[in-house]
């Protein structure tokens, strides 16, 4: 896939139109993971609009998004920043060897009470 095709693919995967963004920043203002992110929700939208593929693919913030949809809820322009984050994360984890969690790292951190829902969610988000 060429660089342009990759960008187009991220845009299609996200199903959202980043060009509608009016840069008000409400998405980042509402984000509960804001402090953990090297790239903030509004920057995901803006970097995709500018075609900054490498910055998106190299960021750490894809692992901190909680998919809580607060950014989507607050956007006055109907943009879905969380869907852009997910499209970037999907693109990364679909590359060979880029899964976000390793099965062998899980047993030591699983405690008695961890619900299946957590493991299934994390695997769906972080691995392919």
């Amino acid at each position, binding site marked *: 896939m060429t660089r342009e095709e990759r960008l187009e693919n991220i845009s*299609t*995967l*996200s*199903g959202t139109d980043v060009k509608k963004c009016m840069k008000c920043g409400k998405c980042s203002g509402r984000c*509960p*993971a804001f402090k*953990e992110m090297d790239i903030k929700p509004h920057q995901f939208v803006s970097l995709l609009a500018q075609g900054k593929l490498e910055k998106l693919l190299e960021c750490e913030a894809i*692992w*901190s998004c*909680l*998919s*809580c*949809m*607060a950014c*989507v*809820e607050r956007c006055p322009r109907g943009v*879905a920043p*969380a*869907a852009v984050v*997910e*499209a970037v994360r*999907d693109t990364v984890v679909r590359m060979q060897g880029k899964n*976000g*969690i390793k099965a062998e790292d*899980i047993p030591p*951190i699983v*405690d008695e*009470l*961890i*619900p*299946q*829902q*957590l*493991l*299934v*969610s*994390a695997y*769906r*988000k*972080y691995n392919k």
Partner: protein
Amino acid sequence: MKLCYYPGCTLKTKAQALDKTARKCAAALGVEMEEIENWQCCGAVYPMGTDEIATKLSAVRALEYAKRNGGKLLTLCSACHNVIKRTNEDMKAGGDIAIRANNYSKFDEPYKGETEVLHYLEMLKNVVGFDNIRKAVKNPLNRKIGAYYGCLLLRPSGVMAFDNPENPTIIEDFIRSIGGTPVVYPFRNECCGAYVGLKNKELPKKKSEKVLSSAKEKGAEEVITACPLCLYNLQANGGGILPVRYFTELLAEALGVEE
């Protein structure tokens, strides 16, 4: 009244308390929950990628089964509800996802989102009615209870259409119906930290502590939720600030149907 019921993986294992109390309470309130045949795990998170089809098929199968068996599908776990309701919306929309899911599934007739997805709380409100719950209560709870909505029931509100996403009231109305006093606090619709704990243990800790200290500050004596992951995060990562239980456990207590 009989309703098709989708329990989901966690309600059969770590969250049995949610499933068992819900079934008992429904029976006491005249609703029969009929577990659907051969259900599969919903995947716990709705895959947003527009090319994600296979990951939605278990929800589609459950929805199609419910369509042929009464037309309603009752959910209880917030995550299952979120995944199934959003997938149903995809099927209604009739786009690429719906076409491919139907092509693969080969149902007798294509599934077009006809099933009504009903969360247990919506069932209490719209099928049973909070007034009828009030009449059925044997032990009014007389305590201050904080409703924790989290994300999955409310957002995205355009699809979930569950309640006002910024100022919801359904769980507070539920608390009143079982004789409790609802405590409204600012963090009741904030995320608990979700699944990120497997990558970053600190984030759910910060988020869950904020939720519980916000509830405590406003006078809550306990917090209730409909989500096994929220319950886990608030209990395991919330610093023990307040006790956290499933809303159905309190309903069972109020109706006098506890074990």
